[in-house]
């Protein structure tokens, strides 16, 4: 085992230790007054109730799939025997990351509000470091999972045989699928939960009963706050856990394939390089957390600057430190890989900046939507859709530029396809670069809902106006960082999607190997035949040759069918999740109306609403409504592979990635812009609160809610889960396909 590998478990322990330290530090803070503690306890209880229910459902799914994989692996011998266990641990670690992050967030909100009573900086410190618990737990558990599996598999398979290293890395990829299944449930379920509560609270509480946001008389207000935690903390955490391990493992697999003929030492360096960069980024993220502080009279810009110092500081440090580490590791094409890494970092920053430009009320797009409110809801909707569609251009251009540069640098400064594997490894390294500082970027993301809940707690507890001004400032900042975080998640999905497609072909080769091992021959669609003894011939096939033998060209109807199906799935998945929110919100509306009708003491303030029932309705609705999109995502690659084989699956993945990425950016940015256009009006523009413009903006925001918090973020998981699923069932696809 190369010495550099040990940096990975060390970084994991440091990250988890730091997360525990920040957690302890946060827990030492007081929750404030009795009212503040009571409200926080309601939210905490609701969040735990939701997670219990979700983990029951997702646990059942994970165990069921594990049993299926056991049958495939041990009865039909179509899969590596480690796959079922790797799959299960991925799901478990992802769930654990979400649980810890959400538990922390529900403890942190009242403490943030209470700290804001002392100063803005104290509030920022508590909220941000509680967010850092989530960020560091995600990367810490990710690296721990990777370390354990790499250690175990290398122990059993050894690292001297290049093919065995490929088998190790592609086997490890399957725990990414476990994480992807968990993250789909967390993200989509959380998204449905939070938007059902949010829309229900707004429609009945704010519009019908006329009570303000976060008014404790609104039965859905606790569910709304719970939703912020389960959707934006647990959901986002599980999503990015899956992205993080997916990126590192896909890059490791690409490294194993690209350097398979370079000798064991070089190949192993290429395999552990993404892990080491991830570990380095994690250590520097811990350092970056300490950069985040601000003065008492800080403006919004200075607050943003404070967070930027942490995130950008970590990014600069990783850019510089990685030169020395990659050099010390003695990687081949070291400068090319470093430039690819840098391209990934810059792509991430460009996507984040674009998201901020298109969603912040400080810039023209959101202000144009706000201006459109003067002519009514219809023009607001048209304006938001238009700006959202336009917003896709910069991120897509950033990603394609990043892909192009990373390929060019990774392949040894060439666009030729003779060095395809090396170029793809460069793309993998770019994705690793983008997510290397996830520990701190996720902290800025998880910080948002904590600050949001702190604001709600301050409002409901009737804290001093100065405190509420401080929590408002923190909350407003959280909205901007949330948009940036979503851009990161989506951007990384695009790069990971490409890396996973290459890994898929490697897994296909292993699937063919299983067939050969059973003493059978294998014939490709172009009639190229491999005899049962042709193991070496199979191993010598590079990616381009595999694509040729499978006839993966645009005019192949199997590929075209796959592409159109993939693109269609992105839309259908969005449609299903949007409709799910509509149905769940409808149930919430009915319940809130019922409580107002049957419990007249609520409005008089003499009777507590039944908060728990609203939480239960959102929970059940989320669990029920997420089944169909989950089945769709899990079944699509299996069905496509069963009918149209490898070319169909590759077409499916390409179509879903291209359409899903653009659609996801569109939905996230349009939703964010609608939300902030409403906030812009509430700040006093175009007539302010209570005006006709405000009414139109509220409609825009309500439409945008499921865009930005349910369908949009769910799409990137769809893309990655389908790719992971394809990899896991590649052995079956190779063995059985109808056409």
């Amino acid at each position: 085992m190369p010495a550099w590998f040990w940096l990975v478990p060390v970084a994991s322990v440091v990250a988890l230790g730091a997360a525990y330290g920040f957690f302890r530090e946060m827990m030492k803070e007081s929750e404030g007054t009795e009212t503040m503690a009571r409200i926080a306890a309601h939210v905490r209880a609701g969040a735990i109730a939701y997670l219990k229910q979700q983990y029951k459902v997702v646990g059942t799914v994970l165990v069921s799939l594990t049993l299926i994989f056991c049958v495939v692996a041990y009865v039909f011998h179509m899969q590596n025997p480690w796959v079922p266990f790797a799959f299960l641990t991925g799901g478990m670690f992802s769930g654990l990351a979400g649980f810890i992050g959400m538990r922390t967030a529900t403890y942190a909100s009242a403490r943030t509000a209470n700290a804001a009573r002392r100063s803005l900086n104290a509030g920022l410190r508590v909220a941000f470091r509680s967010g850092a618990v989530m960020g560091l737990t995600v990367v810490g558990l990710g690296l721990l999972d990777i370390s354990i599996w790499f250690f175990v598999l290398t122990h059993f398979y050894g690292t001297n045989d290049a093919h065995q290293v490929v088998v190790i890395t592609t086997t490890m990829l399957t725990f990414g699928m476990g994480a992807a299944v968990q993250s789909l449930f967390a993200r989509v379920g959380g998204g449905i939960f939070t938007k059902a509560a949010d829309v229900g609270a707004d429609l009945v509480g704010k519009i019908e009963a006329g009570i303000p946001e976060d008014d404790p008389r609104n039965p859905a207000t606790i569910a709304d706050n719970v939703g912020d935690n389960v959707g934006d903390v647990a959901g986002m955490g599980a999503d990015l856990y899956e992205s993080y391990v997916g990126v590192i493992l896909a890059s490791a697999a690409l490294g194993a394939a690209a350097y398979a003929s370079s000798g064991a030492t070089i190949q192993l360096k290429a395999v552990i390089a993404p892990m080491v960069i991830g570990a380095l980024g994690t250590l520097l993220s811990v350092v970056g957390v300490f950069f985040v502080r601000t003065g008492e009279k800080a403006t919004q810009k200075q607050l943003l600057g404070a967070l930027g110092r942490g995130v950008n500081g970590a990014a600069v440090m990783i850019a510089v430190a990685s030169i020395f580490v990659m050099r010390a590791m003695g990687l081949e094409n070291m400068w090319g890989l470093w430039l690819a890494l840098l391209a990934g970092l810059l792509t991430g920053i460009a996507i984040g900046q674009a998201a901020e430009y298109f969603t912040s009320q400080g810039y023209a797009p959101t202000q144009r939507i706000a201006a459109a409110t003067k002519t009514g809801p219809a023009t607001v909707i048209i304006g938001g859709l238009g700006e959202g569609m336009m917003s896709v251009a910069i991120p897509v251009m950033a990603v394609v530029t990043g892909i192009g540069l990373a390929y060019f640098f990774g392949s040894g400064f060439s666009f030729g396809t003779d060095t395809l594997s090396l170029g793809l490894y460069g793309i993998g390294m770019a994705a690793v670069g983008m997510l290397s500082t996830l520990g701190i970027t996720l902290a800025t993301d998880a910080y948002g809902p904590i600050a949001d809940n702190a604001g709600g707690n301050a409002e409901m507890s009737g804290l001093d106006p100065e405190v509420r001004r401080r929590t408002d400032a923190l909350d407003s900042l959280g909205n901007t960082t949330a948009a940036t975080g979503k851009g990161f998640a989506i951007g990384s999905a695009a790069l990971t999607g490409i890396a996973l497609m290459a890994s898929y072909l490697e897994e296909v080769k292993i699937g063919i190997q299983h067939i050969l091992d059973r003493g059978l021959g294998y014939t490709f669609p172009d009639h190229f035949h491999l005899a049962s003894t042709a193991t070496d011939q199979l191993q010598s096939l590079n990616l381009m040759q595999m694509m040729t033998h499978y006839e993966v060209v645009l005019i192949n109807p199997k590929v075209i069918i796959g592409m159109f199906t993939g693109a269609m799935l992105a839309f259908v998945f969005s449609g299903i999740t949007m409709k799910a929110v509509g149905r769940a919100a409808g149930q919430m509306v009915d319940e809130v109306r019922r409580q107002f009708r049957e419990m007249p003491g609520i409005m008089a303030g003499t009777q507590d609403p039944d908060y728990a029932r609203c939480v239960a309705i959102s929970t059940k609705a989320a669990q029920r409504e997420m089944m169909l999109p989950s089945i769709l995502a899990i079944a699509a690659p299996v069905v496509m592979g069963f009918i149209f084989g490898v070319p169909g699956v590759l077409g499916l993945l390409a179509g879903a990635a291209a359409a899903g990425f653009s659609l996801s950016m569109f939905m996230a940015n349009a939703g964010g812009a609608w939300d902030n256009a409403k906030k812009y009006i509430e700040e006093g523009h175009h007539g302010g609160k209570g005006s006709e413009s405000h009414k139109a903006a509220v409609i825009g925001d309500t439409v945008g809610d499921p865009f930005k918090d349910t369908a949009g973020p769910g799409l990137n998981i769809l893309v990655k889960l389908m790719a992971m699923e394809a990899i896991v069932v590649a052995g079956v696809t190779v063995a059985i396909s109808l056409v």
Partner: protein
Amino acid sequence: MSTYLYLSLIPEALVASMLAPDDFGLYYAIGSAKRSRGQAIFFSVDRDKIADAGFPLADVEARCVAHSDGRPKSSLYLSIYRVLERIPRDALTALHLATDDGRVLTIQPQEFVADGEERTHLYQEICPVTPRIVSHLNPAEFAGFITDTDRNVHVPRIAFTELTLGNLKNDPDHHDIDNLPYPNIGHLRDCLRELAKAPDKANKTVLRQMTQEVLFRTIRNGVFIGDSTGITAFPLPTRDTLEREHLAWWRSAQSTFGQ
């Protein structure tokens, strides 16, 4: 149980109730079944000072009694139509502004003191008539003008409020309407321009009839009751005081959409 007398402006009525102002405001705004809502503006009335006004006050003792199950009597209408003009200004001991979700702000009367600022005023008449007017006159002058018996068009007593005009108060063409929620701003600008061109013209009607609730956040300096003998002011607390001492009411007032 005490019994209270209230003068409601929306609608104009004298009401007896066993509910204290905060509870009456809640009841009046959202009803007993809590399914309807609408803001309420009402005054506490000193019963001793309206003894000679001809209201059926004996009904209060006879009919404003608790229900058989012990619940207090919420409202007993004693009179509607031309009520305001029969109640002397000094009988109005407090003003209560109830938001449409039932939060109540209570304001004590004060002597009116003009702020002396040169500006155009925007008045919303609340009772007994409800036009919205732009005017050169300050609140005391405006009340005197509307209740001037020498003019053909007058009322005996008027309840009204001055609404904020923001940047338009001295410049009808100012591009930034900022936080003004009034419908049809273009027409408001036309009225302000017309008034600016005619210094001899005291008032100009913007809306013949109030079509929406008064957004409490737009009240500039309070509610006034005026007649030919003078004016009584019920000034709204400062923004800072509202945020510190009347937070629930202020949040509710800000979130009101109107109907």
